[in-house]
């Protein structure tokens, strides 16, 4: 090579150009991230993320709805027949196969996020006069999804069972959701 400098210069220029673009992109991204991330839940919103519920007054066959993270949570004190029907159900033919034991911590109480897994409506079935659907659990009036005593999807467009929130029993009748 007679002129050694030319390809070297080109390499230097390429390096400078590429490193400038890369640093510029990193800088731009580090400015854009706060603009996007400010829309995520703020610290005070995250701090309100747990709810405690006392179940002592909840008689067999009754249900209550509590608010957790702005969403309804269904708690139902199941009767013996309801527990039996939930436990005896064969997993064959279930859209989202789960045993009842996988879905409860204390078989008397079923705790569910009361939001239909189809498009987010609140299913009926908490009040005594409500339509409970063909399987006796919950029925979503928006698009006709039927849930059983374990909150499992049995019929209708919803793809999965009603979601189980994170919760724990602080005592026999005190429950902490979240």
């Amino acid at each position: 090579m007679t002129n050694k400098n030319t390809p070297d210069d080109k390499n230097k220029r390429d390096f400078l150009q590429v490193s400038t673009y890369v640093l510029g992109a990193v800088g731009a991204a580090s400015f854009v991230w706060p603009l996007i991330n400010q829309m995520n839940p703020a610290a005070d919103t995250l701090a309100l993320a747990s709810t405690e519920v006392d179940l002592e007054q909840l008689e067999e066959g009754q249900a209550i709805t509590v608010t957790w993270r702005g969403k309804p949570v269904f708690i139902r004190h199941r009767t013996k027949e309801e527990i039996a029907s939930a436990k005896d159900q064969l997993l064959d033919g279930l859209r989202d196969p789960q045993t009842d034991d996988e879905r409860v911590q204390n078989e008397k109480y079923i705790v569910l996020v009361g939001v239909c897994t189809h498009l987010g409506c609140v299913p009926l079935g908490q009040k005594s006069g409500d339509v409970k659907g063909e399987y006796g659990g919950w029925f979503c009036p928006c698009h006709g999804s039927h849930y059983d005593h374990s909150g499992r999807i049995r019929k209708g467009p919803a793809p999965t069972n009603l979601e189980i929130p994170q919760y724990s029993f602080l005592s026999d009748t005190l429950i902490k959701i979240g």
Partner: protein
Amino acid sequence: MSKPKFKNPVVNWIDYRLPIFTFMNHELNEYPTPKNLNYFWNFGSLAGITLVIMIVTGIVLSMNYTAHIDYAFDSVERIMRDVNHGWLLRYIHMNGASFFFIVVYIHIFRGLYYGSYKAPREILWILGVLILLLMMATAFMGYVLPWGQMSFWGATVITNLFSAIPLIGESIVTWLWGGFSVDNPTLNRFFSLHFVLPFVIVGVVILHLVALHRFGSNNPIGIDVKGKQDTIPFHPYYTIKDLFGLSVFATIFAAAVFFFPNFMGHPDNYIPANPMVTPAHIVPEWYFLPFYAILRAIPDKLGGVLFMFGAIMVLFVLPWLDKSSVRSSQFRPLYKLFFWFLVIDCIALGYLGAMPAEGIYVVLSRLATAYYFFHFLIILPLLPKIESTRPLPVSISTPIITASSNASTVMAMREKK
């Protein structure tokens, strides 16, 4: 289209129907720019970028802000403590306002020094003064939003300026407030206007750019471009120069945001607004101080307001006050001297605006105010009659080439042309 302008056929297809690429190529790429621009010509693009930063951070802040007297202060504190990166966004927006004024004031004094307001750029200049007025209104209303003590009393004092108008003044103030004092309706309308005015500014900035591109930038020696030899394409020469300036600016801006974010603010604005107690020493943000000094210098309510607004109004008619046909201070020895007097006078006014209105400060404020108007209304119109300007170069290229080593030969070549 006889011959395609762009390599990319999709770009060509679109450009034939919507000549957006031709437009961008013409105005941002090949746009002929005087080749002798110095770093003072960076401040126009810096101001534009700062405007974009303010709008972007402002939009995300508004997603977390509540425009109600009971919640505004707390919602700002929530932004500072709880919202992800909220402290960063607010500090950028808060300091951005100060930096916007720093950049724009330098931009304006650049225009004054190099005579950029003279024919044929009068409308360009007037649009610029209009942008300054809009910026002041926007900054003032933005300062009210956190609903601290300075917000509240700043709003009270500034809106009360309009009560100086004879006969209808009181009604106008009531109308501005939407009540009988600065209260929730005032905060609501200020938020609405603070949100919309920046987009009005964007509109005027576009007109400012259209007017600029009609005759192109002025330049340090202030003579017209005589031909292609006096210009270079905007890209890459000035895009890279603007980018370099931007990175220096961004470094200083970031230093302020991260290391002294409250340096240019007032601690009193971290006290929630209290309509029953005025802070002992109330001053506006630094960028309003020179005008505030003028307001206080005049011992008459209406007079003070008129002189304060007059200080801006005089800029609107500046192209007709300065009758000298020579633009750049480089060839106007006397004007250059008076320019620097004006700079000192404006800084002095800014200092005096921050001082209490008593004793020697009142006297000095009056002298500085008088000199401000003396400069524009007396010195500038009279100056061309007594000033002997230096001879102007033949062209922008001439002084550059004369300075080079083989000046004589090149000069000779150029003379032949």
